[in-house]
């Protein structure tokens, strides 16, 4: 009896485990792989090709277009798409059990390029990526706005969609009220003073629950002050970096804003949509956030609201704006069963053609320089403006992080930033605590 019971329990556990691993929302695009002979006749690629892509605020129109074009060019492939807003969670069991899809678009909640590299899940693309070219033969790597993340000199993921952090304002509202659009930190302070005095509102709002102010306010400041060397040291938690002079100087600027009452005192209670809503309702004048803001909030935009975008003006007068990208890359699984198809797909979409389609189909720019958007009337004006801005070297300098900051470092530093922005600690205390967080991070990531 006892033995029987044990057997039953074991069987139930196994059944439960198997049931837990099976379900994901998958769609089959084609069935051609069942006929290998036909596949061989029409194209070199054959077999099953699995793509995992996150679908968020940008929608999936661009993806559907790219995949159907790719399918038409490679009839021998059986393309399976795993997509949706929860795809990263749904596919977790596949990655844990070492049977991942071939190609992954690393974006959205529950995904992290740095973590996937740390978990040794991605294929080393260093050599192969050098061979990629655009339509006109220019090497792909030199056409990127943002360089691929580097981990000990190796690259594992190619940045596809370019998001960048900057500061938004309402162009027409600013004009109506006679507020000047800032061009550096000093003019920003002047405008904020004006907004506070005339408008009676706290000029700046941000998400207080997620590290937005760290990415959108501090990091551009750090980049403008200390360049790529500094931000790389900060991301890598190099000893002394977080309490270095340039860091303190930038943090002092935030402290100055806090003391002057320019930061919304309620920001710590707001998540990003709530803070964006406050901004749209003109309860605040500026919000540091990514390119996705207009697309994400499109249903709530009041009439007459005219989005204006500048890279966050944390830099001293006379210096160009510093802009920090947040990129969503494409990568191939190390354990991919059809790496050739995955490579072909990457080569297929990293072209000017798909870069031109992207702003129209998903309201986002691809990470490719020199794309002409002027002639397409379907593209919103702010995107054209952003495109012109980021292509103008005299106004904006792009700074790439060597790789995204690990959440284990970002979260504790952000926590202290919240205290600073609430006026609970000084800039000096902030840098000490951030340095301590970096030390803990070094210790725990060994």
């Amino acid at each position, binding site marked *: *009896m006892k033995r029987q*019971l044990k057997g*039953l*329990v074991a069987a*139930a*556990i196994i059944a*439960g485990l198997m049931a837990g691993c099976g379900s994901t929302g998958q769609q089959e695009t084609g069935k051609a792989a069942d006929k290998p002979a036909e596949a061989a006749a029409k194209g070199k690629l054959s077999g099953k090709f699995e793509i995992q892509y996150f679908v968020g605020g940008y929608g999936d129109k661009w993806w559907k277009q790219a995949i159907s074009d790719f399918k038409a060019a490679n009839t021998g492939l059986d393309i399976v798409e795993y997509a949706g807003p929860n795809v990263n969670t749904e596919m*977790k069991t596949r*990655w*844990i*059990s*070492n049977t991942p899809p071939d190609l992954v678009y690393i974006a959205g909640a*529950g995904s*992290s390029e740095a*973590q*996937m590299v*740390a*978990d*040794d*899940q991605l294929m080393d693309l260093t050599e192969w990526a050098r061979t990629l070219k655009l339509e006109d033969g220019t090497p792909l790597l030199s056409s990127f706005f943002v360089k691929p993340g580097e981990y000990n000199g190796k690259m594992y993921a190619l940045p596809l969609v370019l998001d960048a952090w900057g500061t938004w304002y309402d162009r027409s509202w600013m004009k109506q009220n006679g507020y000047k659009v800032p061009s550096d930190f000093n003019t920003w302070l002047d405008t904020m003073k004006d907004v506070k005095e005339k408008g009676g509102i706290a000029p700046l709002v941000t998400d*207080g*629950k*997620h590290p937005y102010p760290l990415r959108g306010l501090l990091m551009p400041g750090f980049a403008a002050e200390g360049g790529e060397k500094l931000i790389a040291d900060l991301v890598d938690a190099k000893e002394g970096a977080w309490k270095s002079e340039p860091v303190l100087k930038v943090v002092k600027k935030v402290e100055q804003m806090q003391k002057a009452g320019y930061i*919304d*005192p*309620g*920001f*710590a*209670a*707001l*998540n990003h949509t*709530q803070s964006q809503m*406050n901004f749209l309702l003109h*309860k605040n004048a500026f919000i540091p956030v990514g390119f996705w803001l207009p697309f994400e909030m499109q249903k709530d935009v009041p009439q007459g609201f005219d989005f204006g975008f500048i890279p966050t003006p944390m830099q001293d007068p006379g210096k160009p704006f510093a802009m920090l990208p947040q990129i969503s890359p494409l990568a191939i699984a190390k354990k991919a069963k059809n790496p050739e198809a995955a490579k072909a797909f990457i080569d297929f979409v990293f072209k000017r053609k798909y870069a031109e389609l992207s702003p129209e189909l998903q309201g986002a720019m691809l990470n490719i320089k020199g794309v002409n958007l002027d002639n397409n009337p379907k593209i919103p004006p702010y995107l054209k403006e952003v495109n012109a801005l980021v292509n103008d070297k005299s106004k904006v300098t792009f700074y790439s992080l060597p790789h995204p900051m690990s*959440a*284990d470092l970002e*979260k504790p530093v952000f*926590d*202290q930033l*919240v*205290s600073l922005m*609430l006026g*609970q600690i000084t800039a000096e205390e902030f840098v000490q605590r951030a340095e301590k967080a970096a030390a*803990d991070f070094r210790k*725990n990531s060994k």
Partner: protein
Amino acid sequence: MIASMVQSKAQRAKFLAFCLLPTMILFAVFSVYPLISGLYYSLFKWSGSGAKKTFIGLGNYARLLEDPVIPKAIGHDYFLVFFKVLGIMVLATFFAVVLTQFRIKESGFYRVVFFFPNIMSVVVIGILWTFIYNPDMGLVNSGLRAIGLDGWTRPWLGSLTWALPSIVLPAVWAGIGLFMLMIMGGISGIPASIFEAADVDGATKWEQFWKITLPLVWAQLKASIIYIVITTLNGSFVIVQIMTEGGPNNATHVMGSYLYQQAFVNYNFGYAAAIGVLILALSLATVLCLQLFLKREKIQY
């Protein structure tokens, strides 16, 4: 004849198996297995999103001791336990006594009103109260402004000082109904003759409450307290996660929300499992202490 009336041993075993097996299987799959695997994973450095696992022995537990958020989170957990037990028990007992003994006409209506939050999901309650506390548009601050108390307005959930107390209120509000019903059940089990006799002897309502009602519903009170403590230690995660995500600057993190953050935001699944073991140990210890503390002679009149 006798043989057919007495069940054979085999029949009895079959019957027992029929009753117990489904429960045992569910228990094994959903309690024992996760418990053991939680213990197992707490010995690894594992992101929870890949196949790569490194055995680090008690490394995660050593990290627990050094993590400055852990003592804070434990403190917040017991802060919630204390104020939830106090708030819920006082109010639930008070309402139960009023609704059963004061013969109020609308008692049925109030019963529904007080029980209503219990049929709402905690997620809904959390979102609702986040709106109520919203610094700009929320009911609390608008109300304070409307009655001229502008100085009292604050960004409740965004304040390092006020965020945690602000979470207690909805947690108490959401909890009252169920325990009120439990205590009402207890009170209605007390024979009316005892209260009548007390009335004749000239005991005030207050004396009746302390000397009769409270001792006789002690079993219900004890069960309620233990239930609140356990659900708070294991379940405040939901309301914290919805309302503040542990912020600002960890001012509201409870162990459960910190576990979630470590497992699914910071990719430290092994470390999160160690936090889970800590929650288990603390819950067990707390319940054992409570059992001793609440031990009281069973009273019957």
